[in-house]
C-alpha cells in the first residue's frame, strides 16, 4: 500500500499512479485514459459503450445528487437496480461522495413485494441507510412497506446525469470502509461485510498476481453486481485494472445463455468467472452443433459453488471445437469476507483433482492461497489444527480480511476471532493446494446464492397441511444442471391433499426467497427420522431419500 495502477491501455501514457483508495484509482484511470473503453453494457438489443471519461462524468453527477440530498461521507447508500449502467454510476458516485454504497438484489418477478420489503424493513432499521437508489416502481413499493420511511431517494434515470452543483470528490482514506457487500441470507438476516479501501486494493494487487491480470486482459460477465464474483472480480477488477468489461443482463443470460459466448467471440475477452451451474447451463442451453471462436479466453474460472470435475468434462466436450482446452478451466475459492479470492489455481496448468476415502468423491483443487492469505484446517469439534490431508473446517487470515459485519458485533465475534475468520466450509490441504468438500452448517448453495435449510424449514412450518416442525430441506446434487436441487421432505396431515400442499409449499418459498424448490415429497406423520436428541436429521433423511426410501405417502 499504496499500489500502482496501470498506465493507459493504448500505450500513450505508461506512467502509472500510486493509489490508496478506490476513488484515487478511479480518478487516475479517468485522467490517464479518458477515452479508453470501460464497459460494453448489453441490455436486450441495446449496447452502451462507456469510456472511463464518461464513467467519471456520470458518476460525478450522482455524487452531486447525493450531496444535494444531504448524503455525507460515511453514510450508507443502498442501490437496488435492475441491469442498467446506472449500477456503475450510482455506486461510483457514492464512492466519490465519500459515502458507503451497497448493492442489494431487486425483487424477482416471482417474489412477493410485501414480503421482500418486510425483510428489508428489518435490514434498513439496522443499517440505517441515508439514501436509496432504485427504479420508480420499486420506490413506490418501498414507500408503501418501509416503516418510518425517512430515506433520501434517487430514481435512477438519465435525468439524474444532468444534476448540477459544485463538484464533489472525496478521495477517502485507506482505512475508511469503502463499501458493504451484503450476503444473500434468506430472510432479514443479510449481513453487511465491511470492506476498506485498503483491503480492496491490496486484494486486487494480490489477485492480479495470481491470475496475471494485465492491461491486455478484458472480462465478459453476466454476473449480477450484488454478488461478490460479479462485484469484485468483474466490476471492481475492471475498474481498478483499467480494463474492458463486457456486461450482460443476468436474467437475459439465463434465458439465452449463448449471449455470453457471442460476447466473448465478438469482443475477444480473455477472462470469465462462472459458478459451477453456469458451465452446465452453457452446455445445456445452446443448440447442438453451434460453434464460437472462444480462443481469446485465457481462463474460465469456476467459483462460488462446489466445483465438479464432471461439469468441466462436459464443458470441454461441448466447447473444445470452439477453442476451449483443459488448461483454460480453472478454479477459485472466494468469499466476500476476504474481499473475494482466498485461493486460485495457477492459470495455464491443469486444475488438479484428488480422490480421498474421507471425502468419498473426487474433489477439484481450488489452488494455493493467494499471496498473503494463510489457511488453517481445524477439527470442527475440538478446534484443534489438523495435519495436511485431513478434512476439517477452513479458517483464513490475511491482509485483506474484512473488518466485520456492519452494525452486527455479535455476528462478527462468532466468526472473526484473533484475526482468523471461520468460513463454515469443510476441506483439506494437499500438496499446498486447497480442496473444498462441503459445509459445516446447513447452508445450501443454489445457483451461486446461499440459503439456510433451517430458514426454509421455518417458512414451511407456516404452510397449511404441513405439520409444523416436521419438514427438512435437503440439497441434492443434480449432475445435469450442475447445481444443487433443494428437495423438501415434509410430514403432512392429510396425504390426499398433498398436491395442493406441494404447490403451496413451493409458492411460500419462492415468494419469500426467490428459490424454486426442485420437489416436495409428502410423508405421513412420524415418517421422518429423528436424531437421538429428538430433532429431525437432515443427513439421515437425505440418505434415505437418495436410497429411494421415501415413496410418496409412505413411512421410511
Amino acid at each position: 500500500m499504496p499500489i500502482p495502477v496501470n498506465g493507459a491501455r493504448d500505450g500513450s501514457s505508461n506512467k502509472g499512479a500510486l493509489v490508496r483508495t478506490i476513488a484515487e484509482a478511479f480518478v487516475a484511470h479517468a485522467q490517464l485514459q479518458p477515452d479508453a473503453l470501460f464497459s460494453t453494457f448489453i441490455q436486450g438489443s441495446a449496447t452502451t459503450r462507456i469510456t472511463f471519461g464518461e464513467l467519471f462524468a456520470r458518476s460525478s453527477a450522482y455524487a452531486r445528487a447525493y450531496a444535494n440530498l444531504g448524503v455525507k461521507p460515511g453514510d450508507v447508500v443502498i442501490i437496488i437496480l435492475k441491469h442498467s449502467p446506472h449500477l456503475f454510476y450510482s455506486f461510483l458516485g457514492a464512492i466519490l461522495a465519500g459515502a458507503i454504497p451497497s448493492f442489494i438484489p431487486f425483487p424477482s418477478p416471482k417474489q412477493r413485494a410485501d414480503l421482500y420489503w418486510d425483510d428489508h424493513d428489518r435490514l434498513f432499521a439496522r443499517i440505517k441507510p441515508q439514501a436509496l437508489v432504485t427504479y420508480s416502481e420499486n420506490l413506490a413499493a418501498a414507500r408503501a412497506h418501509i416503516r418510518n420511511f425517512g430515506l433520501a431517494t434517487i430514481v435512477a434515470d438519465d435525468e439524474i446525469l444532468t444534476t448540477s452543483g459544485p463538484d464533489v470528490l472525496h478521495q477517502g482514506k485507506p482505512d475508511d470502509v469503502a463499501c458493504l457487500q451484503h450476503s444473500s441470507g434468506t430472510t432479514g438476516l443479510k449481513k453487511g461485510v465491511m470492506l476498506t479501501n485498503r483491503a480492496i486494493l491490496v486484494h486486487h494487487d494480490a489477485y492480479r498476481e495470481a491470475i496475471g491480470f494485465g492491461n491486455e486482459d478484458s472480462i465478459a460477465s453476466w454476473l449480477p453486481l450484488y454478488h461478490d464474483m460479479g462485484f469484485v472480480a468483474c466490476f471492481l477488477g475492471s475498474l481498478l485494472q483499467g480494463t474492458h468489461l463486457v456486461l450482460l443482463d443476468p436474467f437475459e443470460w439465463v434465458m439465452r445463455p449463448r449471449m455470453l459466448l457471442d460476447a466473448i467471440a465478438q469482443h475477444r475477452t480473455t477472462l470469465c468467472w462462472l459458478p459451477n451451474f453456469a458451465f452446465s447451463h452453457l452446455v445445456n442451453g445452446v443448440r447442438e452443433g453451434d460453434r464460437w471462436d472462444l480462443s481469446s479466453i485465457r481462463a474460465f474460472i469456476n467459483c462460488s459453488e462446489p466445483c465438479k470435475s464432471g461439469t468441466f468434462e462436459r464443458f470441454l466436450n461441448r466447447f473444445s471445437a470452439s477453442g476451449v482446452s483443459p488448461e483454460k478451466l480453472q478454479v477459485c475459492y472466494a468469499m466476500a469476507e476476504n474481499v473475494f479470492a482466498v485461493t486460485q489455481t495457477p492459470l495455464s496448468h491443469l486444475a488438479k483433482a484428488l480422490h480421498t476415502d474421507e471425502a468419498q468423491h473426487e474433489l477439484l483443487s481450488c489452488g494455493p492461497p493467494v499471496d498473503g492469505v494463510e489457511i488453517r484446517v481445524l477439527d470442527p469439534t475440538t478446534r484443534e489444527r489438523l495435519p495436511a490431508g485431513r478434512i476439517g473446517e477452513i479458517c483464513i487470515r490475511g491482509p485483506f480480511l474484512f473488518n466485520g459485519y456492519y452494525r452486527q458485533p455479535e455476528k462478527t465475534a462468532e466468526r472473526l476471532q484473533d484475526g482468523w475468520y471461520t468460513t463454515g466450509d469443510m476441506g483439506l490441504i494437499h500438496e499446498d493446494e486447497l480442496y473444498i468438500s462441503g459445509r459445516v452448517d446447513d447452508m445450501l448453495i443454489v445457483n451461486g446464492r446461499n440459503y439456510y435449510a433451517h430458514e426454509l424449514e421455518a417458512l414451511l412450518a407456516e404452510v397449511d397441511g404441513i405439520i409444523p416442525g416436521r419438514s427438512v430441506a435437503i440439497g441434492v446434487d443434480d449432475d445435469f444442471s450442475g447445481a444443487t436441487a433443494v428437495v423438501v421432505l415434509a410430514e403432512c396431515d392429510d396425504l390426499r391433499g398433498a398436491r395442493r400442499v406441494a404447490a403451496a409449499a413451493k409458492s411460500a418459498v419462492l415468494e419469500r426467497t426467490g428459490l424454486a424448490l426442485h420437489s416436495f415429497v409428502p410423508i405421513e406423520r412420524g415418517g421422518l427420522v429423528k436424531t437421538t436428541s429428538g430433532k429431525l436429521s437432515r443427513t439421515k433423511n437425505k440418505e434415505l431419500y437418495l436410497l429411494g426410501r421415501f415413496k410418496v405417502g409412505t413411512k421410511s
Partner: protein
Amino acid sequence: MKEETLDKIRTCVIATFHLPPETPITRATTSADVDGWDSLSHAMLIMKVEQEFALELPFDRVYDLANVGELADLVQATLGAGAQST
C-alpha cells in the same frame, strides 16, 4: 390450431422435465406442478419450444408466464405476428 400449439408445448414440457408421457399437462399447469421447473430449466423449455416452432420468443415476455396456457398464447401471438409481417 390452438389445440395443436398446446399439444406441441405439452410434448416439449414432457421432454424437458423427463416426465412420463401420460402426465397431464394442461393450460392451467404451472411450474409449481412440475418437479425441477426453475428459471434454468425454464430456459431449456423455451429453447425447445423455439426450436419446435422455429421462432424466437420475446425475452421480456418469456420470464414471467403464469402457466402453460400463457406460454401457448405467447407462441400463438408470436406466430401470428410473424405471419402478419411476411
